[in-house]
């Protein structure tokens, strides 16, 4: 995946700072994602990774700095505006509707695309029916894409964790985003589930042309799929570059990665 030519800049965050009382979550962070790029955000716990995602899709508004996206530069996003403009995300602790089926959860991802109001949809007649069918067809494509056909009608709460993560990705993709923000999509998964998830992220990036901002702790995964790695520490950005560069950056090693052992080196060589 490395060495691809990046597209135009899709999202640009300039000089963003965010604090909660005395805690500085982000300090003067510059961050950007190109079109069709997979950018990993790494760093120790509390480094401000999730805060950065939350600023980007408007959950938090920053104290300082600007966000440029979709031809507009503004101080802060609003969540529904971000969603309308094609920013979708998943959460560290799964945020699905547990009692609803997989199908309904993924359909919910298309709510913003529905033209007809609640009443029309309740009537399910004429144009509303046609619209629903069209959305359903798109949702089925995503279900096929992520290979969750076998649980289509199963309530999400009954699914194992790894599958719930996949359903969350499905719901995010249902919004046909330009930018997909994934907050630890592989935490708590076994190796096989991680491999599947990597495959899905790469495929989504490759075939749907989605840019991906990804928080992940598993360095093997990051090295494998990211085009670029951004490292945060205590709310500051300490590195930004190709995975191989970041891996040998002394500041990053001190803050997060630790001194590489021989085994790490071997793994790294194999990964690249």
């Amino acid at each position, binding site marked *: 995946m490395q060495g691809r030519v990046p597209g135009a800049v899709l999202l640009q965050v300039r000089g963003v700072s965010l604090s909660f009382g005395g805690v500085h979550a982000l300090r003067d962070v510059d961050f950007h994602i190109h079109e069709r790029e997979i950018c990993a955000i790494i760093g120790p716990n509390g480094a401000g990774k999730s805060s950065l995602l939350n600023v980007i899709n408007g959950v938090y508004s920053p104290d300082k700095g600007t966000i440029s996206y979709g031809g507009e530069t503004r101080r802060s996003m609003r969540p529904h505006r971000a969603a309308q403009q094609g920013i979708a995300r998943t959460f560290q602790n799964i945020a699905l509707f547990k009692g609803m089926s997989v199908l309904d959860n993924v359909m919910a991802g298309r709510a913003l695309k529905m033209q007809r109001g609640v009443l029309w949809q309740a009537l399910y007649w004429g144009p509303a029916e046609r619209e629903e069918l069209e959305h359903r*067809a798109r949702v089925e494509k995503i279900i*096929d*894409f992520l290979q969750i*056909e*076998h649980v*289509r009608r199963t309530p999400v709460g009954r699914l194992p964790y790894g599958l719930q993560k996949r359903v969350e990705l499905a719901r995010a993709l249902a919004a046909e985003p330009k930018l997909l923000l994934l907050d630890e999509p592989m935490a708590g998964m076994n190796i096989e589930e991680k491999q599947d998830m990597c495959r899905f992220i*790469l495929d989504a990036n*490759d075939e749907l042309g989605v840019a991906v901002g990804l928080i992940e702790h598993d360095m093997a995964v990051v090295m494998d799929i990211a085009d670029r790695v951004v490292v945060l520490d205590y709310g500051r950005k300490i590195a930004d570059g190709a995975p191989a560069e970041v891996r040998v950056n002394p500041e990053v090693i001190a803050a997060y990665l630790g001194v590489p052992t021989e085994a790490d080196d071997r793994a790294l060589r194999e990964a690249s």
Partner: protein
Amino acid sequence: MPAADTFPRLLIEHAHQRGDRPAIREKDLGIWQTYSWKQSLDEVRSLACGLHTLGLGRGDTLAIVGDNRPRLYWAMDAAQALGAIPVPLYQDAVAEEMAFVLTNADVRFAIVEDQEQVDKLLEVKSRCPRLELIIYDDPRGLGHYDRAQLRAYEDVQAAGRDLERTRPEFFEGEVAQAQPGDVAIMLYTSGTTGTPKGVMLTHDNLIVTGRGGIQRERLTADEEVLAYLPMAWVGDNLFSYCQGHVAGFCVSCPESPDTVLTDMREIGPTYFFAPPRVLENLLTTVSIRMEDASRFKRWLYARCMELARRWGPSILDGKPVPVGARLGYALADGLILGPLRNVLGFSRIRVAYTAGEAIGPDLFQFYRSLGVNLKQLYGSTETSVFVCIQPNGQVKPESVGTPATDVEVRISDQGEVQVRSPGVFHGYFKADAATHESMTPDGFFRTGDAGFFDEDGHLRIIDRAKDVGRLQDGTLFAPKYLENKLKFFPFIKEAVAFGDRRPFAAAFVCIDLAAVGNWAERRNLPYTGYIDLAGQQPVHDLVRSCVEQANAALAADPRLRGSQIHRFLVLHKELDADDGELTRTRKVRRGFIAEKYAALVEALYSGQPAVRVETQVRFEDGRTGLVRAELPILEALTVDDEDERRAA
């Protein structure tokens, strides 16, 4: 039924006679997509022409790898239309295993389902020098691959349509050249003994055999069939592809291997095949869900199933049943059995087969008592599946029925089952010696199975012929038959029987930790783990009662009553593939075990009361350790002639 004699001619005939009727279905994006016979023919024609432009010709082989998909079935038709030989491979085989078949079969072209299979083939391509081109169905994930070795299915068909325009008579001309005696397909046997061998079956082999089955079961063009078992397996080829082509019924492909249960319910097959493993999993699903049901429902289920077990099989066989029992069964059918069949997707089944391995009598009778006409079948790849089938109305759980249409079955002097039929194969590919060895001079195929005909003329298979031995007094000893009898008890996980050239039969038994553990808990019997539980007196008594029940069943059969189990011991450890005691497919490696535990085997025959044992075991993390135990040698009651005389 059409009289066409090759698969491509059958396809053309159906396209003319019932062009708009469904031929094959596939669930795609959640919706069943149906292709008529006419559409199927169009797809096959353009694919065949496309394959011709790539250079696929008479006698070439075409590998087919993937789940059951219409496009892969069409690939079979297309290859056969050109006089080429399709070679379906097991889709879950690892790259290594595929490399063997691809090389052995001289494969030049492969049609595969998706990226997973493309990756496997590319991995071994350097070792398969003749493999030129991989044609894929699903382009997903293949965007960055080197195009030189890959071609999209659509592109091949597009090239084919160009050829059709310039030479419209080409396809029919090719089809006209095929002879019924030509090799139609090559299927690799699983290879439990040595390397896999390519079994060549002709159009005639399959079509005549398939037609015989259709006539026997009165199958029509209106059957519904779900094709969910591997395409590389002869059963799928015969039940889905061959009989679909002969009878003209519609075959449905499930959405994915994980959705088979849902798809079963939606399709409602009328003709169904399942190996015992699948039927067992279904029963487990039902049992687990019943455990979670409310007390009233559990009670109702238990009562209805009791009634069904008692009367269901007799009603299904059309035997006389008291009116009261019929009424009771009808009520149970309305309350539980019918809805259960519906949940399983079995509501419309007229004929269901099981085969592949021995099926436990309880499992078998469960489905029959539900009113599902499940029947056992005996056959092999080399005989185009059908050798014996249980006839309607005369289903005996322990036999595999009577010879199928046009099949001659005989038992050799050594007790081996030998078969002569129109379905007996053409030969093993590039293995004339093996072909020669497998046939008798008068044209019977040696199955390698030992069996006999019972008093009603039903065939009973007891073991692999080479494993069958004799006790010292000359009594027949069939170890696998004894082991299966024991394994059908839920408390017994594995059994290993000994007796060849010995005075009597004896066995090692491994308990099923889950089942016996549960049993122990209900009796407030504390235990720490497998070794502890297996060493307890009450567990020994439990196993003894199983062995004695098995002996009673053996005694009922004059040929086998001599091989009742006199002594046994409960092993201190589970047999494990990691320790080399089982094969990866969980078959007991009897020879290895006899060698490894020679001291235990001797103890069984020496008459000593107990034996000390020390065994190295390998744990899952790779460490090894020593297990020590003292195993008592246990005696089981046998039923002998004197007992019966005394009882009389």
